[in-house]
């Protein structure tokens, strides 16, 4: 089982899948906050799924990056028609992602406040902004990932 899970296509699929799960969870929570929905439990589930999704995409993507990307993919991109895809997109992606977990943890702590507490503490706007940033980070990093994959394909054609 572990052998299948650590093959390159499965790792890429899991990396992308967990990232999508995290982004969707933060967008779900954004909807809850904007709608001033009452259920704290639902907010915590959404924030927890977002945090776990981002943590798992980090671990799986990191394993793939360290074990396969540098040896197999990076040389192809650098020798191909879009070497900037590694130099700009990959380098930025791998480092900007390190912002995501601290932001996701902060969102989780904020999700423990119900709609009235968020309003009375004046933190609703702050949580909304952080959720937009968390989802935006995930989406922009996903875009960079698409560019990197496309550059690798062009590199071998």
């Amino acid at each position, binding site marked *: 089982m572990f052998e299948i899970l650590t093959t390159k296509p499965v790792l890429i699929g899991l990396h992308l899948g967990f990232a999508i799960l995290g982004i969707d969870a933060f967008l779900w929570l954004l909807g809850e906050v904007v709608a001033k929905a009452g259920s704290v439990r639902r907010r915590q589930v959404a924030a927890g799924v977002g945090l776990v999704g981002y943590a798992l995409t*980090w671990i799986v993507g*990191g394993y793939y*990056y*360290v074990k396969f990307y540098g040896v197999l993919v990076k040389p192809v991109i650098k020798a191909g028609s879009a070497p*900037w895809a590694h*130099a*700009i997109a990959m*380098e*930025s992606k*791998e*480092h*900007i992602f*390190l*912002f995501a*977990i*601290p*932001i996701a*943890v*902060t969102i989780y*702590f*904020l999700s*423990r*406040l119900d709609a009235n*507490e968020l309003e009375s*503490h*004046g*933190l609703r706007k*702050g*949580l909304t*902004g*952080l959720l937009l*940033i968390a989802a935006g*980070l995930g989406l*922009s990093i996903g875009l960079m990932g698409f560019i990197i994959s496309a550059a690798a394909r062009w590199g071998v054609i």
Partner: protein
Amino acid sequence: MDKLKSIYSSAYSAVITILTVTAITVAAELSAEFKNWLAGFSGHHWVTKSYISLIVFALFFVFFFSSKKSVSDDETRKLLAVLQVFAVLGFIVVLAFYIYEFFSH
């Protein structure tokens, strides 16, 4: 766990973590020695940076959470705004740095 204090501590630690990651990222690209030194800890510079980001975040969270008796709504609100600004600035700085590095070499 005090809800407001945990939000404050987490947001403050996140700001410091973003600053640290951005500084280490730029410094490692400007100094091959520093990059190799980072790689020496785990076998890969990025893995070491990942560990550093977790350690910095956890240490400062514990520090702020244990050192503050209480936090006000205003302090927490301002800190969330600061975190948003630093997250966006960190994104721009890292991306702009690598664009500059690519076109300058």
